């Protein structure tokens, strides 16, 4: 309290020497603050922009041989074919990728395996240069099961290409 009284007295003793100058430090300070605020309010801003979309995957025609590398190894995408359509199942890498229960299907024609509900090596078409599996020997139940899988894939995964036997790729 004592201090305040002392300071008040001190200031009072200074007397009135009211400056009428425009360019006092206080004015400059305030003016600067004002101009900065005005600038930041009024600065024209370009319209909002989002990063560009991921480029679309190009629809490709695969043969059993060119599909083979897409088995998920070395961080590659995982593709598998069902009845001539190639699905990108990379999002289901835990199932279809290396080490997953369905890893045999990666990069292969999985139609027969899915239809029969078997993940065996024997379900895959051995001859990569031969014709595609026609599935003509399958029964009604198996085709129904395959239909179910296809519908599921259609909902979840992208069709990124089609599978044709070697020799037909150039015609397509």
């Amino acid at each position, binding site marked *: 309290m004592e201090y305040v009284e002392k*300071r008040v007295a001190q200031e009072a003793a200074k007397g009135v020497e009211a400056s009428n*100058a425009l360019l*006092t430090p206080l*004015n400059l300070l305030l*003016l600067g603050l004002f101009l900065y605020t005005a600038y930041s309010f009024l600065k024209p801003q370009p*319209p909002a922009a989002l990063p560009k*979309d991921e*480029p*679309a995957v190009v629809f490709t025609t695969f043969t059993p041989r060119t599909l083979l590398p897409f088995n998920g190894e070395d961080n590659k995408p995982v593709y598998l074919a069902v009845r001539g359509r190639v699905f990108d199942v990379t999002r289901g890498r835990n199932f279809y990728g290396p080490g997953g229960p369905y890893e045999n299907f990666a990069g292969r024609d999985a139609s027969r395996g899915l239809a029969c509900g078997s993940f065996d090596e024997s379900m895959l078409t051995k001859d990569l240069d031969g014709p595609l599996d026609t599935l003509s020997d399958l029964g009604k139940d198996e085709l129904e099961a395959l239909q179910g899988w296809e519908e599921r894939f259609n909902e979840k995964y992208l069709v990124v290409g089609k599978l044709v036997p070697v020799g037909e790729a150039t015609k397509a």
Partner: protein
Amino acid sequence: MAFFDNLMLRMDESVTGLFGQWNLYTSLIFTTFVGFLTYQVVTRRDPDTHPLLLARQAQPSQVRHEGESAVYRSQAAPHGMPLQTGLNVKDAGASKWARGRDGDLRDIWRQVVGSVQDDGLTKGATGRILTVMGTDHVTEHRLDDITRQINLIGQHILDQGGNRVAIYLPNSVELIATLFACAFYNMTAVILPFDQSDEAVISMLRRSAADTVVTIPGSFPFDTVVKSYPSLRQLVWVVDEGSSHMDWNEVPQGTGGRVNVSTWQDIVSDSPVDAGKELPALKDQKDPRDVTVFWQSNNGLPEEMVRFTAANFMSGISALLFSVPASQRIGPSDLFLPADSLANTHTLLLTLGALYSNSSVAFNSVAVQADDLAVATRGIAPTILVATPSALLKTHQETSNAFTSFFAQKLHWLQTRHLTQNGVMPVAGLLSSYYDRLRPALGSKPGKLRLIFTAERVGSGNPQLSSIVLSDLRAYTGARIMYALTAPKVAGAVTQTNFYDYRVFEDASGSHFGPPLTSTEIILKDWKNYKTTNESSQGQIFVRGPSVAGGEAGLGVAGRIRDDNTLAYI
């Protein structure tokens, strides 16, 4: 301790010293500062739409084929879902939750007179139909009268063996009524662009194989047509009141012996008063017939004839209506004025959409030729306008010439700022009252206009509207503008700018046509040296969807997808 005390004292002294300098100027600066902050805070409004919604307006498909771009669709019509096919017409007594029919032209007129579709506040409200003649002579048509005309004219043409009815009329109630008459009485309507040369009219009649013409005297080369187009069987003159006393039925000897000539007015007034009051029943009605239109291009090529199915039309109409946000949709409180030719499907479908929305519709036959919005809107105060880009450019030119004073230019700058920086339409305020005096005179009551539709016609070579011109026009008129891209084979529009898109792009690339409508999807196919790569999508514009005649059409021009996924010419 002593050091600390000392520091405090010095700080105290410097602060008092600083504020001791307070003088008149300081007060002045301070007041302005506070005033500025208050103004900014008080006038601050949320943008009309989220800015990021404008940053990516269409959705690309995730897979594309070699040699073409991804398929682009409206955000409101996701991939994997069907595009918008129709008006979702609910029949009386149908379950509220059941999906409605796509509808056809007959459902539009039933909605105009009955207003049964909407369950909201506007249920039962019907619009008015007006004709503007001369400068400010406005006639209202009773809806019942038009229904009667539709029935009587339709029945008359059908009784005389009409099957393909060419409509060669300026924008008028009769044009719309004939279109509905064809729909109700199972005839194919052929809409000819008005005000064409004799050769063009004959060529269009021949190509469309029309057997009946509905037209007005003075514009239609009757004698020439009778001589050179023997398939004409029937002619209906629409005569205005001033000349209805003349006997138009009398065919000059030797010219039109085979042609059955009558006048609209006679057909309507010679029938019993009670005749034709009820529309044909909905039950057991036949499948809707096609509508044939002609697309004019300015480059001297013959008009392109396009047959649209009823499904094309309904899809186009519903997508155009859907493109207006729900809170701003066209409704019974609107007055809609087509100031562009109804022979263009864009204008026609918007007009049909406005009718379906029970909005009031005004027809002005001089609106098209005038190419002057001030003339076209005389005598009425439209809230929604369909205008040609050239008429808008003219309005822009004339208005910007008025903005010469420093004060006016600063006001315009302020209005534009609201639009482009804050994303809001400027509202009326103290400052804008001065601005109001400089606005273009559109309509008899200023401030009513709220929406302008306009469209680039592909391949027409018309000047485009840049984003700067569009923004200026929004500020001048106080109305939002939707700029569409239209093409011969597409009913309505291919793409259309977003209702809330007020952005301005300084560079020349500023002109774009927005994302696809919910009835179309676009794809760019490699063409000439325009190739789609992973970085950019460009090529010839192709459009697919239920509103496209034949399902898919190439537009014959190169386009590109901008970073905000809107379509632009290259």
